[in-house]
């Protein structure tokens, strides 16, 4: 690909006077592929983390379609919509291990999916190294806190709290 575009570019650039810019005696400068891994590449970028992140977004997305749309259907639409929600309603649902497991999976998958998505957004828009670093630290702190709190609430729920 790079060889082709270099030739095309050189021909196009030199086309006005009909003389190619580069030839065998005057070769075009070699441009290294921007992502090429060299000896100087830091170890931390030698993993396939981004590939697994990309795959996770798609796999978790498929599962979340069922979990989140099902959740919205139950909470907002069936059985009177939002009217029925209250402590007693939650106590009834979390009496069942099935809905506890549903909510737990939804919590972890949605939080990790959303956090990984927001990491991409931060990487795209925060230009200064410092800003990017601190925004991601804030994101990771909020994510760990929310996942742990939500997990704790599901496991320690007490219908007879009062």
């Amino acid at each position: 690909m790079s060889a082709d575009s270099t030739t095309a570019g050189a021909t196009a650039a030199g086309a006005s006077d009909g003389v190619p810019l580069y030839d065998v005696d005057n070769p075009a400068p070699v441009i290294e592929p921007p992502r090429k891994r060299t000896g100087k590449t830091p170890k931390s970028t030698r993993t396939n983390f981004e590939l697994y992140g990309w795959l996770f977004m798609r796999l978790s997305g498929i599962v979340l379609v069922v979990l989140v749309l099902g959740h919205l259907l139950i909470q907002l639409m069936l059985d009177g919509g939002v009217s029925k929600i209250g402590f007693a309603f939650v106590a009834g649902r979390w009496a069942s291990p099935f809905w506890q497991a549903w909510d737990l999976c939804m919590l972890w998958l949605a939080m990790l999916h959303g956090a990984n998505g927001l990491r991409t957004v931060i990487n795209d828009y925060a230009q200064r190294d410092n800003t990017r670093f601190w925004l991601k630290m804030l994101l990771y702190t909020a994510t760990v806190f929310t996942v742990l709190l939500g997990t704790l609430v599901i496991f320690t729920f007490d219908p007879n709290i009062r």
Partner: protein
Amino acid sequence: MPAGTLYRGREGMWSWVAHRVTGVLIFFFLFVHVLDTALVRVSPEAYDNVVATYKTPIVNVMEYGLVAAILFHALNGLRVIAVDFWSKGPKYQKQLLWTVVGVWVVLMAGAFYPVLQHTLRTLFGS
């Protein structure tokens, strides 16, 4: 030719913008939502108090908006997955987008009464 250097994509760019905006929005909602659900560990009254705000007309309308955002993000997410993994996906990405929009419109029309029934009943109800 446009004079500027601004990238002007077509449907593909706008669906990407909408996917990004809805994704960020849902994430912020989820953060607040786990905090309000955590009130079940404080007391039934504290939880029922915060749920009462979910039942006000304005917030009820916002819930319809949340459904709209999630439904678009979910359907378009499936389209992104189809474009990535289905061999004919890239060729039909535009048709897929209009399918997404069509299904979204139908489902949003169908969700109108179920989601807003609480408000409709308290404002006009018998």
